[in-house]
């Protein structure tokens, strides 16, 4: 065994001994303060912290089991002793006979029952004493709001959410801080979440449409007031019991063992969840990373490609619809990284490929929501709600009424690897200009002086130098590619230039007319653009075809070939340049409260 392995083995033994000494102290009836204990053993601080966190987590998870087995909680100090947790603030910890309700005070609130626990904090069912009402109280784990800026933003968001007053939205009552712990309180909803409902299986199509239409209406209400949800997912859609009196919902198919007829959805966590680092790692050792399952591409890239806006919520609603219909996420992935790369580069399998029973119209709606580019999705949630209504009324939906022409137009807007080529608009146009002017020069000079080697090399050399300079200038004084996406582009066009050089050399040696080569060059360029069509922007297909089509013309009209060829190149590069210029926006990170 090697020395480092021995070292880590020894170190682990040492950690185990320290943990044993802690447990022995517990057994002896002492309750060592965890923070003090960690401070006494700084060499094992990380391991101890993880161990305590895992114990707390276990104690919480084991509680229902202990209740089911009607056993008392056995370990002294076994429950919630972690630093920064609520233990320090509890004034009265009483348990009833079944041990199910532990009433503790938290400021103006009496904590009745823990409802859920997630990466960002704990949700309790609680009673607000001053108003004597039952609320859901969400505490934010320490470290979730790292800076004062975060805290300010969180409060601003909570206040914005507190102004939302809609039956489909769980109201935010109060946001505050108690003994250093941030929290907010919201309406308590009796019922379960859509995530729990999903565990029982997929929803019938009509039921999914009815449900999501209501969700859309609520989300639209918030959008109108400038609040973006940012984290729509089944767990944030609660299914509240509907009062008998207003159970006049559309009749739904019977054979579901979780009829939603008497339920209506209420959206919770408006604009708040994403302010917190719920997707960052939870502990140093646990490394629980959130998966971007319902997140739009622009959110996953931190708002770099497009600003996060209402369209992001449209995407999330599409992902929810996808899951309601198929029982799986659009991009199920083993790791967050996989999910992210799929989210950015792949299309989800059409829902009907997974389940033939899904109506085509609903599939069309779903896929339109899941478009990578925000502008290809529904322009508002209200529009999506209308689509659902059209589907429910048996009318044809807009998403599937797309004509062939607009399908092609849409396909041509499809742009990949954009983050790498953004900002290339002007550069490409400069390339186009250089090539155009060079070919005009070639045309004029070679038209007057026949077969002068000097003119030939001077014009080509000047063009090549100008191109290199342009590249160097627009790439901020560097020439070589740095990213895989760039590398392919470099290889294709260096290859093109080499081929041109070789061909020119050969022809020059045999004394052919240079102008006869332009047809071959055009075919070669067209081939390059076809590759660009697949690699960066589908406009490349059109440009490539244009080169191919013009090639025979160049072969026939050799006299004007340089002019036509140069114009073609300029046109191609201008097209690409314009494409990127249109895409270019001020980089707008997902920042600043949306109020």
């Amino acid at each position: 065994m090697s020395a480092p392995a021995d070292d880590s083995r020894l170190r682990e033994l040492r950690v185990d001994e320290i943990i044993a000494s802690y447990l022995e102290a517990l057994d002896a009836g002492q309750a060592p303060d965890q923070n003090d204990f960690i401070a006494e053993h700084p060499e094992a601080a990380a391991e101890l912290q993880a161990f305590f966190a895992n114990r707390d987590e276990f104690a919480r998870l084991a509680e229902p089991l202990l209740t089911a087995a009607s056993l008392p909680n056995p370990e002294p100090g076994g429950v919630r002793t972690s630093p920064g947790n609520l233990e320090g603030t509890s004034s009265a910890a009483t348990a009833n006979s079944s041990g199910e309700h532990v009433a503790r005070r938290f400021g103006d609130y009496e904590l009745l029952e823990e409802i859920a626990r997630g990466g960002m904090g704990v949700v309790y069912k609680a009673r607000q004493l001053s108003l004597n009402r039952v609320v859901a109280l969400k505490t934010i784990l320490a470290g979730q709001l790292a800076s004062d800026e975060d805290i300010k933003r969180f409060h601003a968001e909570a206040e914005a959410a507190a102004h939302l007053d809609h039956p489909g939205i769980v109201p935010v009552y109060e946001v505050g801080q108690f003994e250093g712990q941030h929290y907010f309180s919201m309406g308590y909803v009796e019922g379960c979440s859509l995530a729990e409902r999903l565990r029982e299986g997929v929803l019938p199509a009509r039921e999914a449409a009815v449900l999501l239409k209501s969700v859309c209406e609520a989300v639209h209400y918030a959008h109108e007031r400038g609040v973006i949800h940012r984290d729509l997912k089944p767990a944030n859609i609660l299914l509240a019991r509907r009062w008998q009196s207003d159970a006049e919902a559309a009749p739904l198919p019977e054979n579901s063992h979780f009829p939603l007829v008497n339920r209506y959805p209420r959206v919770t966590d408006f604009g708040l969840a994403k302010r917190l680092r719920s997707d960052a790692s939870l502990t140093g050792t646990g490394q629980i990373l959130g998966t971007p399952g319902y997140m739009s591409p622009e959110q996953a890239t931190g708002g770099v490609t497009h600003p996060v806006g209402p369209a992001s919520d449209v995407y999330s609603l599409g992902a929810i619809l996808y899951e309601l219909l198929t029982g799986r996420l659009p991009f199920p992935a083993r790791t967050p990284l996989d999910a992210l790369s799929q989210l950015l580069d792949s299309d989800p399998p059409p829902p009907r490929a997974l389940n033939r029973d899904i109506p085509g119209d609903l599939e069309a709606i779903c896929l339109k929501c899941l478009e990578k580019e925000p502008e290809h999705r529904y322009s508002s949630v209200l529009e999506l709600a209308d689509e659902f209504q059209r589907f429910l009324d048996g009318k044809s939906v807009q998403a599937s009424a797309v004509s062939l022409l607009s399908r092609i137009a849409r396909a041509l807007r499809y742009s990949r690897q954009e983050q790498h080529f953004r900002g290339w608009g002007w550069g490409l146009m400069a390339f186009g200009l250089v090539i155009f002017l060079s070919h005009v020069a070639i045309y004029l000079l070679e038209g007057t002086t026949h077969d002068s080697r000097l003119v030939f090399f001077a014009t080509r050399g000047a063009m090549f130098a100008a191109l290199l300079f342009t590249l160097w200038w627009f790439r901020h004084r560097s020439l070589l590619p740095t990213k895989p996406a760039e590398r392919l582009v470099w290889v294709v066009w260096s290859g093109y230039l080499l081929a041109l050089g070789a061909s020119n050399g050969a022809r020059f040696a045999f004394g052919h007319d240079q102008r006869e080569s332009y047809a071959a060059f055009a075919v070669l360029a067209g081939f390059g653009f076809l590759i660009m069509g697949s690699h960066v922007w589908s406009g490349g297909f059109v440009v490539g075809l244009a080169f191919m089509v013009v090639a025979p013309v160049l072969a026939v009209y050799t006299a004007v070939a340089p002019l036509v060829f140069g114009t073609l190149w300029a046109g191609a590069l201008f097209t690409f340049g314009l494409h990127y210029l249109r895409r270019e926006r001020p980089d707008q990170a997902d920042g600043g409260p949306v109020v």
Partner: protein
Amino acid sequence: MSRQLSGPGQDLEGYRDYLRLLAQLQLAQALQAKIDVSGVVQQTLLEAHQKMPNCAASGSDQLAAWLRQILAHNLADEIRRVKAEKRDVRRERSLNAALQQSSDRVESWLTAQQSSPSLAARRQEQAVRLSAALAKLPPAQQEAVVLRHFHGWPLAQIAHHLGRSHAAVAGLLKRGLQQLRELLADLE
């Protein structure tokens, strides 16, 4: 032995680990070797499968409460059977004590269940998931965690029971809890 069972709309198989753990928690340690816990659980699931009404409406909490009751009855029967067999074996005094203790426990568990309301569905699912994750742990870790966190044994007693040092048991607990957390995160 472990035939896959499922009822209409509900997957009984998912409750196997949960029921086994509950049964283990009811039995005194000395009795665990004498009673075929897996067999009792299997019988419970079989009975449940046969008696299961086509209960479209019953939630997972009600189903689990019902399963627990069948399990408790079966456990009580099994303890009675072992008792009858051992009646004349005087030497196994400690076993008798364990039998008495466990049968008392199961009886009181049964009455507790009949009087207390069922758990909320969410908490119920949590319990089932935790049981499944526990069942996936290596046996030594599993035993250490169950003895410590459910039976509340002191470290010294667990160390003696497992024939390991205190530090080794602490290591089992540390790794067991860590692995549980990861397993549960995967199950999420």
